[in-house]
């Protein structure tokens, strides 16, 4: 499936409502590093931690900049926790 050929607003990030158009506009604005683009669009900032958006965005960015997906994702780091955790679970113990 080629996301760029779809018609109408195409959501690439359901956590923060980022569309394919937002992604393309950001690339055209001159953001030429994927990690900066990712942070600008808050991809991976939501509860899914990038599981939904990241590969889609990386593939489109790679295609548009002539890089490989591996190269594009080279600076990406997974942040804990894997899923959002209620603060109350951390209120036992501590110094």
């Amino acid at each position: 499936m080629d996301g760029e050929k779809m018609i109408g607003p195409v959501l690439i990030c359901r956590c923060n409502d980022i569309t394919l158009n937002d992604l393309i506009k950001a690339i055209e604005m001159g953001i030429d590093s994927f990690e900066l683009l990712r942070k600008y669009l808050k991809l991976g900032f939501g509860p899914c931690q990038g599981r939904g958006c990241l590969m889609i965005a990386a593939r489109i960015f790679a295609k548009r900049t002539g890089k490989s997906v591996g190269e594009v994702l080279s600076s990406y780091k997974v942040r804990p926790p894997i899923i959002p955790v209620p603060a109350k679970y951390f209120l036992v113990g501590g110094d």
Partner: protein
Amino acid sequence: MKVLIIGAGFSGLFTAYELLRNGVNDVVVIDAEYPGSGGSLRNVGCFRSSFTSTEHVVLMKRSIEKWLKLRETLGLELEMTGYLWIARRPETMDLFNMIMRFHRQHGVLTRALTPLEAGEIQPGLNTKIIEGAMFDPTAGRMPVIDNFVKLYTYLRRNGVKILPYTRALRLVKNGNEVISVETERGVLNADIFVVTAGGRGTREILSTIDISIPIIDQPRHPLITEPYAKCIKPALIVDWDTKGAPYLTQTEHGGIILARDIEEQAEVSNISHRIDVFKNTLKPLVELLPFLKYVNISRYWIGYYEMTPDHHPIYGPVEPFENLYIATGFSGHGLMMAPVTGEILANWILRGRPNIDIAKNLGINRFRENKLIKEMAIVG
């Protein structure tokens, strides 16, 4: 004149911005990783001028003036919603009063609040366990990433060459001049060299020409919650009397950032997460704002403070070299100082001296000459 800047963070980019404003068009900025990959996109986005050294207050007041002007020139965004420093102990209010006298001497209008007044500024604050607060209404916060991207794309549109993933490996000197920098992607020449590569980065690149600077990167561990409707009213709330001064701020996106300085081994654990951060950060902050026990923590990242012995930056020329300048060691204040950093460095490069005299106190020689600057509060 060709200027090469090592470090494409806020300090490096604002240096490029000020050079451009002064007619220097041939500017190249390189970065070891992506632009902003150091402290620039890892900090919590807050600024203030309420410091406890004359150097910091004077420079930060000028920097805030410049940030405000940048709203018009570059369309940057910031809000002045103030810093709230909470005192849990009565004697801390005495200390706050002493600090506020110093602030007023320098025209920074901080004021003391009773527990109830603090509770009006921050609804939900547990006023029963506090003795009062100090409030700085001229402090604030900003959407860091948006502002970075606006500056970055402006510079690129205006001809500044920015090369990410071009790590500087070695400076090459000839007598008292730096002639080039060897990078992962080849050799780059310039007339003037500027290093704004963070603490460790700057220290390592300067060591290749036998210059040593006393800086270590100290890891910091902020947590962020899922986005919530605006509930943290001041830009920053600081729990002064708890060890490691826990603090919190809410981003424009709604995430509440919670952080506390914990005991760390400098530079050893810059990439290792610690489970104890969660409980040690949350516990004191939930005491102050009990509603926080209902939030969900969605992410945790690591940044660092690039610490100098006196917690002030190192600015200016690097003797004996005639064409090498640095700005580093901001000790947690690099973002807020960045506009004035750029202005000072551009003046040093183009006119041989900083536009603000007091910046001369922050030269690299102060460590050798034992003229360290004293600072009482390093939070936020």
